[in-house]
C-alpha cells in the first residue's frame, strides 16, 4: 500500500531518492578511492618481501640512524630466539667486507653475503642453477647481471669458477667508495644465478666462508669474529604473520632492534583507517543532507495524508500499523536511493579509472577505485539506515495522531 503512495507523489519521491543516491554514490566513491590507494600500497609492500619475517639488527632497541648503539649478535642470541614461541626458523647472516669480482674485463663491486641454507633471502628467485645447500663451501649464488659478465647468459655461468676479491679499496670508477684491510682472493664456483631485481651486487655464499673471509681480512679467527663482532643480522621467521608482534617483543626483550614489514603494514593500515574515516565523513555529510530531505518529504506526506491516516485508524489500523506504513515508505526511498547510488558510484569509479588508463596508456596503472562486497553491502545498509532514521520522527507523528482529529482535518 505504501508503494502506491511512493508512486503517487512521483516527482517529490524521485527528488528525495536522488538525494539519497548522490549521498550514497559519494560515500562509495570516496571509500573506494581510499581502498584502491591502500590496495596499491599494500601490493607494493607485499612485492618487497615476506610478512612473516622479522630481521634482528645488531643494535639496541630504538636504533635509528646515527644514534644506533651497537650490540653483538652471537650464537647465544640465536639459541635464545630459537625457543621463542611461534618461531619457525632463525637464519644467521654475516656480511664479509665489500669486494669485487675481476672477470670478463669488467670489475664489478660485490657484497659477499654469508647465509645459511634455506635462508629467506635465498628462495624462489633463481634464473638458473640452485640455491645454497648444507655442506656447500667455496660456492656462490650470484645476481644475473654479474653472471652475464662472466658468461653469455645465466645458464652458461653455472659451474664456472670466478675470483672473488674480498677487502681492499673498493672503487667506483676512480673514486674509493669503501673497503677495508688487505685484499684477498677466493675462488668460488657459481652454483646458482638469481634475478638481479633482488640485488645487483649481492654474492650469496656459505656463512662459514663469509666468516673466514671476514676473519682473514682482519687477521682474526672465525670464532673470534663470532664472539666479538657478531653476526650482521638474523632473519627470524614466524609460523604465521599474525604472531610477528610476539616475536618482535621477544627480540626487543633480548636487547636487539628489529624490523618487520608486518609492522610497517600495520602502521599503513592504521593510517588508511583514519583516511577512510575522513572520506566517509565527507560522504556522510552528503547523506545527512539527503536524510533531511527524506524527513522533509515524510513530514509533508504525513501532513497531506492526515485524513487518510484518520480513516485507516478508524477502520482498525493500530499505531504500529501506521508507523510501519510510513517507515516502509522511508525504507523504499533508502533502498532505491541506495541501489541507485551504488550503481552511480560503481559506474563513476570505472569511468574515472578508464580515463586515467587512457591518459597513461604505457604504465597501465592498477585500479584506483576498488569496491569490495563489504563496501557495497555497507553502502546499501547505510542508505537504508539513514532513511529509516530520517523517517522515524515523521512516522511517530503519524502514529500518535488522534483518529478523530485526523478525520476532521481538511
Amino acid at each position, binding site marked *: 500500500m505504501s508503494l502506491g503512495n511512493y508512486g503517487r507523489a512521483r516527482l517529490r519521491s524521485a527528488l528525495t531518492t536522488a538525494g539519497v543516491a548522490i549521498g550514497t554514490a559519494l560515500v562509495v566513491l570516496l571509500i573506494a578511492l581510499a581502498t584502491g590507494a591502500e590496495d596499491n600500497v599494500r601490493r607494493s609492500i607485499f612485492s618487497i618481501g615476506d610478512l612473516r619475517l622479522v630481521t634482528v639488527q645488531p643494535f639496541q632497541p630504538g636504533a635509528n640512524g646515527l644514534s644506533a648503539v651497537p650490540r653483538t649478535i652471537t650464537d647465544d642470541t640465536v639459541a635464545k630466539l630459537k625457543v621463542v614461541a611461534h618461531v619457525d626458523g632463525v637464519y644467521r647472516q654475516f656480511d664479509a667486507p665489500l669486494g669485487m669480482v675481476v672477470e670478463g674485463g669488467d670489475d664489478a663491486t660485490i657484497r659477499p653475503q654469508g647465509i645459511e641454507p634455506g635462508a629467506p633471502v635465498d628462495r624462489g628467485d633463481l634464473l638458473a642453477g640452485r640455491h645454497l645447500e648444507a655442506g656447500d663451501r667455496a660456492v656462490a649464488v650470484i645476481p644475473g647481471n654479474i653472471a652475464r659478465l662472466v658468461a653469455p647468459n645465466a645458464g652458461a655461468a653455472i659451474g664456472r669458477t670466478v675470483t672473488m676479491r674480498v677487502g681492499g679499496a673498493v672503487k667506483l670508477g676512480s673514486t674509493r667508495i669503501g673497503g677495508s684491510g688487505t685484499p684477498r682472493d677466493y675462488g668460488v664456483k657459481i652454483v646458482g644465478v638469481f634475478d638481479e631485481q633482488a640485488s645487483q651486487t649481492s654474492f650469496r655464499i656459505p656463512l662459514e666462508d663469509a666468516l673466514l673471509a671476514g676473519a682473514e681480512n682482519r687477521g682474526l679467527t672465525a670464532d673470534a669474529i663470532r664472539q666479538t663482532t657478531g653476526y650482521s643480522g638474523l632473519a627470524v621467521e614466524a609460523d604465521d604473520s599474525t604472531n610477528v608482534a610476539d616475536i618482535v617483543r621477544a627480540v626487543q626483550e633480548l636487547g636487539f632492534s628489529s624490523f618487520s614489514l608486518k609492522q610497517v603494514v600495520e602502521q599503513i593500515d592504521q593510517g588508511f583507517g583514519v583516511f577512510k574515516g575522513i572520506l566517509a565523513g565527507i560522504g556522510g555529510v552528503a547523506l545527512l543532507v539527503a536524510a533531511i530531505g527524506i524527513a522533509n518529504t515524510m513530514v509533508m506526506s504525513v501532513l497531506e495524508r492526515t485524513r487518510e491516516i484518520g480513516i485507516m485508524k478508524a477502520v*482498525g*489500523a*493500530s499505531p504500529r500499523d501506521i508507523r510501519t506504513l510510513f517507515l516502509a515508505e522511508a525504507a523504499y526511498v533508502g533502498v532505491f536511493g541506495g541501489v541507485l547510488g551504488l550503481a552511480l558510484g560503481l559506474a563513476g569509479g570505472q569511468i574515472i579509472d578508464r580515463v586515467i588508463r587512457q591518459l597513461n596508456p604505457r604504465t597501465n596503472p592498477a585500479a584506483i577505485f576498488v569496491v569490495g562486497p563489504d563496501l557495497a553491502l555497507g553502502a546499501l545498509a547505510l542508505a537504508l539506515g539513514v532513511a529509516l532514521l530520517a523517517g522515524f520522527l515523521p512516522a511517530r507523528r503519524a502514529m500518535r495522531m488522534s483518529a478523530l482529529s485526523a478525520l476532521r482535518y481538511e
Partner: protein
Amino acid sequence: MNAPLAVEALDLERTYASGHTTVAALAGVTLAIQRGEFVAVMGPSGSGKSTLLNVVAGLERPTGGTVRVDGEDLARLDEEALARHRSRRVGMVFQAFNLLPRLHVVENVALPLAFAGVSVSERLRRARAILERLGMTARAEHRTNELSGGELQRAAVARALIGDPAILLADEPTGNLDSANGAALIALFEELHAQSQTVLLVTHDAQIAAHAERIIRMRDGRVVDV
C-alpha cells in the same frame, strides 16, 4: 450464560477542557443495547450523540464510567487492542463516507482486513462477496470519484461489515445523501437488521430515526428518553 449485551454503558462521561472551563459531551450516560436491536440515537447538535458513538467505536476514550461492547470493557484496552476492537468488533459508517480516493472500491472495502492480518487474496475475495451482497459488484473495480453519493455510502457500509462486526455504527449516514438515496440506505439498514445485525444509528432526522426499533433521545450529554 446469556450472550453479552451489544452495548452496555454505565454513568459514561466524556469531558473536554476548553480554556478554563470544561465541557461535558457525555454527562453520565447509562444505556443497554441488546444484540440484534436496531437503535437510533437522536438529539440536537451538541447533545453528545456523536461522542457516544465514537466512544462505542473506540475512537474516543471516556473520562468516566464504563462502557462494554460485546462484553469487552473498552477502558481496559490499550491502543493496539483498541485498534483491533475497531477492526473486528465494530463497523463504522460516517457522514462523509471516508473512503480512500486512491484505492478502488473493492480495495477500500477490504481495507480493515489489511490491519487484521488477512492475506490480500482472501480479503479481496471477502470484499467482493460483501459487495455482491449489497448489489455493488458492478462498481467493485471503480475509483471512488466515479461513484454517486448513494453508492459511496453503500461501499462504506460494505467496508463496515467486512469484519463481521458485533455492531454496525452509523453517524449521520444520510447527511450527505439526497432523500431517495437516504431512503435506500435506511432500507439497507433495515434489511441488515432483519438478518439479525445489531445497528446503532445516530441522526438528528426524526424521519430516519423512525425506521429504528427503538429511539434513544439525548440532550446536553444525557439520555432524556429511552
